[in-house]
């Protein structure tokens, strides 16, 4: 193969794609420090839009609402997503397995407007028959948890697949009850996957605008809803400031969690190596 040329071309291609992916993010951050009222014309550096952000009561209450929703819906997503992953991994044959797996895949690709419409019509019917739930926090939570369950299931499934089934068997051979196997062996091994599933579904919820718009009621504006309605009207430097804050927090969280995961992984490998060497001795 013509390695030399291929190598340079490959590097250039990858660099170009990374630049394409990061260009908008970098400009968003740089222009958040721009003093000008015009988002796109650089005047000089200042923290003007950060103080505007700090004084923006609407946006701040929206951020709190979004954080609350993201936290609870991520917990729900991980809980139900783990069930989905176990059901589809542990049991290869049961009635409606294909149905369950396609239902679990559906929210991943189905256009969000359809998911939002369907959920809303269902919740309106339930409200008609039972008198609740009122549209608001709870209904948004359900929508985000439905979406998040599908993503959490993918993350947990991939972990379950690469897990060493012999550890479970060994525990059972040593007389552990099934729930002991779960709490003492399976669950600790799953923790890194559960953490990354939580982070992923948290960010999905924190970012969602379409499902929230369908499912929220008066007085419940999430951060993306506020940003979306402002961005529709035009450019707004406060959005740059709030973007920079979120991007910083998310980047730190993602990097920290990947360090945590690789740390846990290394520790587990070391302990297993020790255990095996003890066993051999």
């Amino acid at each position, binding site marked *: 193969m*013509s390695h030399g040329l*291929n190598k340079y071309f*490959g590097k250039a*291609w*990858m660099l170009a794609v*990374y630049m*394409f*992916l990061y260009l*908008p*993010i970098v*400009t*968003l951050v740089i222009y958040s420090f721009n003093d000008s009222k015009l988002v*796109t*014309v650089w005047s000089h550096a200042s923290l003007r839009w950060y103080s505007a952000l700090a004084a923006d009561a609407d946006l701040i209450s929206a951020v709190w609402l979004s954080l609350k929703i993201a936290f609870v819906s991520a917990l729900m997503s991980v809980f*139900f997503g783990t*069930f989905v992953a176990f*059901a589809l991994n*542990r*049991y290869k044959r049961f009635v409606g397995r294909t149905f369950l797996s396609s*239902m*679990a*895949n559906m*929210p991943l*690709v*189905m*256009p*969000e*407007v*359809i998911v939002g*419409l*369907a*959920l809303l*019509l*269902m919740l309106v*019917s339930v409200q*008609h028959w039972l008198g609740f739930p009122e549209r608001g926090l709870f209904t948004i939570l359900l929508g985000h948890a*439905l979406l998040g*369950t599908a993503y959490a299931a993918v993350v947990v499934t991939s972990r379950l*697949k690469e897990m060493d089934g012999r550890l479970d068997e060994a525990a059972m051979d040593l007389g552990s*009850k*099934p*729930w002991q*196997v779960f709490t003492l062996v399976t669950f600790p091994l799953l923790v890194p996957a559960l953490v990354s599933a939580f982070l992923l579904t948290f960010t999905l919820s924190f*970012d969602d*605008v*379409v499902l929230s*718009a*369908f499912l929220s009621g008066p007085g419940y504006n999430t951060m*993306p809803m506020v940003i*979306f309605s402002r*961005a529709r009207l035009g*450019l707004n430097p406060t959005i*740059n400031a709030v*973007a920079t804050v*979120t*991007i910083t927090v*998310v*980047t730190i969280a*993602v990097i920290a969690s*990947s360090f945590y995961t690789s740390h846990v992984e290394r520790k587990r490998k070391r302990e297993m190596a020790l255990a095996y060497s003890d066993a051999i001795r």
Partner: protein
Amino acid sequence: MAQSKNTFLNFFSGRKLIIGVPYVWFISLAAIPLLIVLKISLSTMETASVSNMVDWSKGWPSLTLNFSSYQFIASDALYVKTYLSSIKYALITTIICLAIGYPFAYFMARAPKHIQPTLLMLIMLPFWTSFLLRIYAWKTLLVNNGIINNALISLGVMSEPIAMMNTPFSLTIGMVYSYLPFMILPLYANLSKLDIRYLEAAADLGTSPLKTFWLVTVPLSKAGIIAGSMLVFIPSIGEYVIPELLGGSNTLMIGRVLWDEFFSNNDWPMASAVAIVMILLILVPMALLNKYQSDQASDKAGA
């Protein structure tokens, strides 16, 4: 196990519960809602209330079906045009994502093993930062007095700004940008497993690199190509936020039509019918995705 059959914890680890919980969850939040959409799409504005979902007036449950919304969609040129235009933009997005993403995934899979996790994380990182904010960022780049136009004018490349916002161009950039990681990830998963010995065998037999690529690499990565393409194509069809922020009023996308029918016109039957037709359009791509995703999964299990 038998002696503690009645304990709660034993029940917790039980097969019935593990299968039952996700079943109830998805039936109530996915299957039933979709059936309600189907039902409402078959009613008229006057009868489309949740109170008379099922008609009991004859003493037994009966459904009155009304196809007027579907007839309207089929007869109105604008709906047909919007569906076609959505498919067109989804196709263009998929093709460009494949053209950019395939070489990228290929080179990434050939990069030194120890830097691959970092390369992968750099692809994932924008995906973690808000999608909405990244689309907004494109708006600041593309508007007439935006960052790109200002930069080109101050560099003297041109004197007048190019109108890039609210065009098919800005819509396509936003869609490609948002969905590119969905193309790269399954392709990379597939290409990084590719057995290098096949390529060596082809080279040993005197096949040119380009021919090897077309005859060996591409066919072997078919599952990744189809999975990635469907992951881009299916959500692109119903995309709402990107056309709303970057597309302007001239780019027709069906997701926006559904939104307007529901929020502006309050026409639930029309919104539901638009949704059902959209679901019919994506059924075949969905089936393809399911097939090739499970193929990839079984490849993994076999390896």
